[in-house]
């Protein structure tokens, strides 16, 4: 085990996978940093600190710094994947999915199906997402609910450095398109990372905390919010089973349903707006398959049906918080 930040775990995994397989190619805006400047390539090493050193080691054919052209980045990833390579493309902010949605949705996600299973499409599209940095309406969104709804894409959200390594390795070595979502507020989170080969299968949630009273399902940054809420509730004698989904497509239905059999009470914490969201998706799952276990109406703690506001006071109100999660847990506990 080595302690490192989540961003370092990503950089290291990209490096290790490029070393292992010469078909792995990375591309994106400013991933080298300093191309065409006096400071020179690698003078900056990527906006998120997730790609430093790759260019010097693997060269310009495998580490491709692109102009600002998200449609062409994702389209090129699709073309690379159809040509036998394993691209890992970076979209600097998940919000820019708006610029390249066609290439993600109508191209990359559908090739295998439309072509009757004739091809694989092993592309990983990494993107930073999420609110909490006052980056306002076009640099803060949690696009995962939207992307989870698209057949053909897998959607992955690491919350720890170890999971970042295990999930990214699985994404790169797999044969399907994967959206790999990195919460901006988690890049500097530190944790132990296993050395050597480490893969985490998709569709396998992580139990963050055990408890028998309430099931709290979360993903991404919301896992730490759920965890903080649960820690406080334990002092009141309420035991929460906190589940980190890790991947929202595929989703670990068993982890949720098994837990509900024990607790009978469900709180979902979701950073995206509430309509047609991950939260409603999980509520649908529970009411369809765990109806007889449920002891209380499901509580959804989500962002409101609004864009992400700028001002600190507004963004704080926008985001699900430990207080809101605790209130939801108390509500399901109080239900008679």
């Amino acid at each position, binding site marked *: 085990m080595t302690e490192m930040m989540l961003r370092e775990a990503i950089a290291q995994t990209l490096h290790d996978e490029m070393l292992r397989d010469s078909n792995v190619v990375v591309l994106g*805006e*400013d991933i080298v*940093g*300093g*191309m*065409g*400047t*006096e*400071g*020179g390539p690698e*003078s*900056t090493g990527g*906006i998120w600190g997730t790609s430093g050193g790759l260019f010097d080691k693997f060269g310009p054919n495998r580490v491709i*710094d692109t*102009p*600002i*052209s*998200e*449609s*062409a980045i994702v389209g090129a990833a699709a073309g690379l994947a159809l040509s036998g390579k394993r691209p890992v493309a970076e979209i600097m902010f998940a*919000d*820019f999915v*708006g*610029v390249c949605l066609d290439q993600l949705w109508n191209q990359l996600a559908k090739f295998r199906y439309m072509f009757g299973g004739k091809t694989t499409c092993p592309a990983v599209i990494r993107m930073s997402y999420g609110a909490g*940095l*006052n*980056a*306002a*309406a*076009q*640099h803060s969104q949690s696009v995962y609910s939207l992307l989870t709804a698209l057949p053909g894409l897998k959607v992955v959200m690491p919350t720890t450095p170890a999971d970042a390594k295990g999930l990214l390795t699985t994404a790169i070595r797999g044969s399907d398109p994967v959206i790999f979502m990195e919460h901006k507020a988690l890049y500097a989170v530190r944790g132990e990372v296993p050395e050597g080969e480490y893969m985490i299968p998709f569709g396998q949630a992580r139990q963050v905390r055990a408890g028998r009273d309430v099931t709290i399902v979360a993903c991404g940054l919301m896992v730490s919010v759920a965890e903080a809420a649960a820690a406080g509730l334990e002092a009141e004698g309420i035991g929460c089973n906190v589940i980190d989904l890790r991947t929202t497509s595929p989703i670990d239905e068993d982890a949720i349903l098994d837990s509900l059999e024990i607790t009978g009470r469900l709180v979902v914490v979701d950073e995206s707006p509430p309509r047609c969201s991950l939260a409603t998706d999980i509520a649908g799952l529970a009411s369809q398959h765990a109806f007889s276990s449920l002891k209380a109406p499901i509580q959804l703690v989500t962002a*409101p*049906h*609004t*864009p992400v*506001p*700028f*001002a*600190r*006071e*507004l963004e*704080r*109100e*926008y985001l699900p918080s430990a207080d809101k999660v605790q209130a939801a847990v108390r509500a399901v506990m109080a239900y008679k």
Partner: protein
Amino acid sequence: MQLDRERLLRAYKNMKIIRMFEERLHEEIKTGEIAGFTHLYAGQEAVAVGVCELLDDEDKIVSTHRGHGHCLAKGCDVIGMMKEIYGRADGLCKGKGGSMHIADIEKGMLGANGIVGAGAPIAVGAAMSAKLDGRGKVSIAFSGDGACNQGTTFEAMNMAVVTKVPAIFVFENNKYSENTGVDYAVGTASDIAGRAEGFGMKVWRANGSDFFDVYNTMLDLLDYVRAGHGPAAIEFDTERFFGHFEGDPQKYRGDGELARIRDQRDPLKQFRLKAVELDKIDLSDLDKIDEDVAALIEAAVTQARAADAPSPEDVLTDVYVSY
């Protein structure tokens, strides 16, 4: 429109407002009071002011993530803007937008924009509207050397040409998109105007550090567009004096590069030299403006710091007109 004394003084004042606004933000951001990402416009003042000096409130502009200069030049309220950047309830956009989303529709300022390349198509729509209204108004898309690589910008240029609308594509080539140099990212040997020409537009080029060159070239360009010849494009050679965003260590710059451009390519310094040569104004006039602007910026910061934060329930307002 001749550059008479009044116009010259106003242009200098507007450039000075932008400069001092940005320099002050550069300092205030270090205190941690201002949240979010801020991209400063200092160094490019002659472009925003030289262009907007020739527009009225009915002419439209669409701006970028580096929008403060465009907003100020187009007449957005200095104090309202400062309050917005501080995220205050009575900021220009009620604290909902912040630095990257300042807009003032009544001033013809259709928004700064956090999505690189999003502005040009919107400017084409505004140009269609201007053509429909038939009053000789124009619509301007400000874009950077980075934004010129976005497909949306290409589509907008072609659509403006084929619909023959009064859209003007202003490219501010400050040599960088974030950490990447224009020589690397723009395939046409850094020639952005040439690319626009390829779309079938008449194009101009000018020195974006020189207000007089910007103004005079725009006079010519605007005559052409207002006369109904369709869209046009112009590329300005300009410089950004601060990092891409506040906090950028700028390791991509060469040794002494910042000092050199601040010395040789400063629009305010160049204006002072030329304006005095013209014999219409004295340096003392400009010094007086400097003092007034310093007081204005001081007042803006003081008022912004003292202003109320939005209340949490405001999160829910302004999504729809009715729902």
